[in-house]
């Protein structure tokens, strides 16, 4: 088959769903109203006020007396739900929380009742009237105080202890990245409607299969009975992947009251009702020679999880195994079970956590040895993946360093800490390396080319913000030879062909390849139809010489000879051509990762300790870029997220009762507009053809990974103070 001309892919297209989003017509979960005469009633969750114990009494009298209240559901009146196994889901080892099935309290903020009322105001007020009595048991919510539980995950290469003993230079540091909450702007919300034993959910989800499978298991009904619809997701960053307990609460409330129910968690409830990036203690020891050649590195991690489920993430170990040439590596990863709700992956999961200690440690070593931080990394740049022994499919990290150093003006940097001032401000620059797995997964997409020359492609993927609608439209437009205007991509409905989870930066590689496959098939059908059609100008032509452009099939070398899809289909009495696209990633012989080099300049008020990021640059090797305008937004947006991780974000827990005291957006600080200036992203050219047919590696995660350590390293350079706990607050610099 002749390669299609690429017109849409690589073009700086504006979002195809932009108009819907700027006019307020894009429908997010809580914006949906079920059809039918019944309208919707409102559910408000009541959550526990203790971290551990039993509910000994529940008084719903005042709540039920409130006008408009239909029902208060809790463990004493809720039906027993099957809660069957849910294999293949994102549920974790342990036992998932079973809503209203017993009197046990596992964490502060656990859903313990739900009030359903005809109006939101009545439900909210009545929820405040539910009285609970508890038998309180001692709880532990402090990672620093609690012992590890269960067997550690370990990795060993060589003999790290011996190598450390004989190293010229040894460093030992402990870093503490804080717990971070995703805090997407959209509150988690579900509208649930039963029709007999069939259930429809309008849900905030990165994977419509996820709530479907979970509710099928929890209610003991066939998955085929459940439809999940989620056309728009107001940000998620990993938190709308797993199906959380409130989904079951919403479906239960709808079933018990006989009305469609809308349940929207409050901002406060997001801190306990859904997941978060766990806090870690991460101890690094490293050994090197005087030239900075690493000989050994050990990593001892403790990460928080809940008592009822064990959360761990592979990504927190990967960088320590493959990022730098290190003959001797030892890793021990322990989880610490606390009386908290269960963590979940958050943007750049594991990698962004590990990058802070590893990239800070490299900066510390560079300072110790008097070697430039970039040069130190170059000296430890591996030729292959030392964890797997495999060659890298592509690794343009050296190029990222070179381009980044040039564009950032790194050569003008005085390496001495505290060497640059601007009035009262200490100025510093720092850099860090970023890495993230190239993940891929199989799936399907339906492609339909209509007689009017327009196409519709459907796949049950999601668009939490990166621009799936747009990038898939671009891929489809080129593969079909249509203009973008004539292509519609739809997503977010379990009635559509199955797509993988929209997360882990795998959507472009996976769904993109799936969409391209389906569109290639349709195009080839049309070409075959034409060359076999005696009435076609293309009759008898070699199919491999035909391309399609602007909806017109023609010979690649003789554009005058051809015809449009419309004519071809009309003459053959066809209303449409259809195909199912699919793609399954093969076993690769290579090690596949996306990379980046992130640079930051900070100004630190010498007297107040306030840190301000003055500019940042990220240079990324993410393979081929399908949609450059949107890719730029993702990278710059990730820098903003990374500023939060580095300087602002952490939860404050009252360890007496496990309550998070800053569970709101006024006290859990996230970056605001005034915090952000001068962000720039560059993607180095290049494809990764081993990764997938599109040559992309995925970019949503890698762009956040190096941000926090780059800022932390810049703060050290500015002040001479090495802060190993995130976030770096003014207090920590005074």
């Amino acid at each position, binding site marked *: 088959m002749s390669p299609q001309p690429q017109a849409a892919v690589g073009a700086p297209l*504006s*979002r195809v*769903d*932009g*108009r*819907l*989003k*700027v*006019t*307020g*017509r*894009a*429908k*997010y979960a*809580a*914006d949906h*109203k079920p059809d039918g*005469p*019944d*309208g919707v009633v409102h559910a408000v969750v009541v959550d526990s006020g203790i971290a551990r114990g039993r509910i000994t009494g529940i008084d719903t009298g005042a709540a039920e007396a409130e*006008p*408009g209240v239909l029902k208060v559901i809790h463990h004493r009146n809720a039906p027993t739900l099957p809660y069957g196994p849910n294999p293949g889901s994102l549920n974790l080892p342990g036992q998932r929380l079973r809503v209203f099935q017993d009197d046990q309290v596992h964490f502060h903020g656990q859903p313990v009742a739900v009030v359903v009322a*005809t*109006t*939101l*105001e*009545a439900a*909210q*007020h009545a929820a405040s009237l539910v009285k609970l009595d508890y038998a309180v048991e001692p709880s532990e919510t402090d990672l620093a105080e609690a012992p590890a539980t269960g067997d550690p995950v370990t990795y060993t290469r060589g003999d790290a202890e011996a190598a450390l003993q004989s190293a010229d230079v040894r460093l030992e540091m402990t870093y503490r990245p804080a717990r971070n909450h995703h*805090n*997407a*702007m*959209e*509150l988690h919300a579900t509208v649930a409607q039963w029709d007999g034993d069939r259930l429809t959910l309008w849900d905030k989800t990165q994977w419509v299969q996820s709530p479907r499978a979970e509710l099928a298991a929890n209610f003991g009904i066939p998955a085929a009975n459940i439809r999940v619809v989620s056309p*728009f997701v*107001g*940000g*998620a960053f990993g938190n709308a992947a797993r199906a959380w307990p409130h989904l079951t609460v919403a479906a239960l409330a709808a079933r018990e009251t006989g*009305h469609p129910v809308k349940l*929207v968690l*409050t*901002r406060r409830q997001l801190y306990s009702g859904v997941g978060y990036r766990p806090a870690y203690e991460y101890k690094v020891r490293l050994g090197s020679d005087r030239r900075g050649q690493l000989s050994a590195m050990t990593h001892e991690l403790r990460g928080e999880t809940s008592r009822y489920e064990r959360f761990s993430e592979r990504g927190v170990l990967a960088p320590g195994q493959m990022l730098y040439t290190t003959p001797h590596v030892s890793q021990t990863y322990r989880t610490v079970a606390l009386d908290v709700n269960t963590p979940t992956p958050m943007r750049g999961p594991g990698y962004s956590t590990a990058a802070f200690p590893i990239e800070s440690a490299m900066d510390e070593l560079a300072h110790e040895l008097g070697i430039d931080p970039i040069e130190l990394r170059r000296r430890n740049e591996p030729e292959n993946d030392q964890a797997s022994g495999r060659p890298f499919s592509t690794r343009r990290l050296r190029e990222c360093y070179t381009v980044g150093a040039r564009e950032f003006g790194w050569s003008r940097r005085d390496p001495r800490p505290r060497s640059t001032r601007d009035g009262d401000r200490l100025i510093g620059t720092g850099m860090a390396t970023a890495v993230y797995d190239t993940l891929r997964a199989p799936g399907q997409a339906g492609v339909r080319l209509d007689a009017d020359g327009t196409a519709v492609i459907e796949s049950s993927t999601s668009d939490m*913000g990166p*621009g799936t609608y747009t990038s898939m439209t671009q891929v489809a437009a080129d593969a079909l030879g249509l203009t973008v205007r004539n292509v519609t991509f739809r997503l977010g409905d379990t009635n559509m062909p199955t797509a993988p989870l929209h997360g882990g930066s795998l959507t472009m590689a996976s769904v993109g390849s799936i969409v391209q496959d389906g569109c290639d098939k349709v195009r080839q059908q049309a070409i075959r139809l034409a060359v076999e059609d005696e009435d076609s100008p293309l009759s008898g032509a070699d199919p491999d010489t035909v391309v399609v452009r602007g909806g017109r099939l023609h010979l690649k070398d003789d554009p005058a000879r051809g015809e449009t899809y419309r004519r071809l289909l009309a003459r053959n009495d066809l209303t449409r051509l259809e195909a199912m696209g699919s793609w399954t990633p093969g076993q690769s012989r290579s090690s596949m990762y996306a990379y980046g080099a992130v640079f930051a300049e900070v100004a630190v008020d010498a007297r107040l300790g306030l840190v301000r990021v003055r500019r940042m640059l990220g240079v990324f090797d993410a393979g081929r870029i399908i949609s450059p305008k949107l890719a730029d*937004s*993702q990278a*710059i*947006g*990730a*820098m*903003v*997220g990374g500023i939060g991780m580095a300087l602002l974000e952490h939860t404050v827990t009252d360890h007496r009762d496990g309550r998070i005291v800053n569970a709101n*957006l*006024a006290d859990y600080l*996230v*970056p*605001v*507009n*005034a915090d952000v*200036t001068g962000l720039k992203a560059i993607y180095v050219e290049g494809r990764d053809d081993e990764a997938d047919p599109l040559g992309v590696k995925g970019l949503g995660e890698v762009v956040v990974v190096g941000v926090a350590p780059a800022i932390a390293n810049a703060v050290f350079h500015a002040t001479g103070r090495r802060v190993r706990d995130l976030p770096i607050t003014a207090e920590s610099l005074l």
Partner: protein
Amino acid sequence: MSTETPESAASPPARSPSTPSRRTFIATTTAAGGVVAAGGLVAGPALLGAQEAAAADASPSSRVSLTVNGERHIVTVDNRTSLLDLLREHLDLTGSKKGCNAGACGACTVLVDGRRVNSCLILAVRLEGAEVTTVEGLARGERLHPLQQAFIDQDAFQCGYCTPGQIMSGVGCIEEGHTGSADEIRESMSGNLCRCGCYVKIVRAVEQASGRK
């Protein structure tokens, strides 16, 4: 309050809701001479009609007349209802978003009598006679407001959830004249959080629409 004398129906209050007075709490006006939106009366779902009437007996409610995007509405609202919930749950205007319900995120920003407010923080009963503009009321038919177009051109959003609030806030920012510099825009737009991190491009969009660039 029950002893107070209602205002004359012939003189609809024109007071700004930002200066609440007793009179803004009083159910007053009729639709005399105004265009009353069809279905403007508290349009609950059908099943709720009877229950809501019952609820109205017990939970204090008020009649409010206000203009939303140029359409006059007379509604009877539970006194606890925020402007945001009135828009979203009763008037089917779901463009304004709930992000925190506490005035900390700006996703619910609308214009009330030309001033930007967090609609989650203002009670609907305070809005007698007010003119409310939401994101749904910015475009003229298919022609987008220049700031809406600028948001698309600059790619000033990703997930789009904060976007209606950002745009309404940006319209306010421009009308207030806080566009003298990028720094001033940043400061003036800092009540609107964007977790996707589109701030750099939001500033560019406001600059574009304000004619600064």
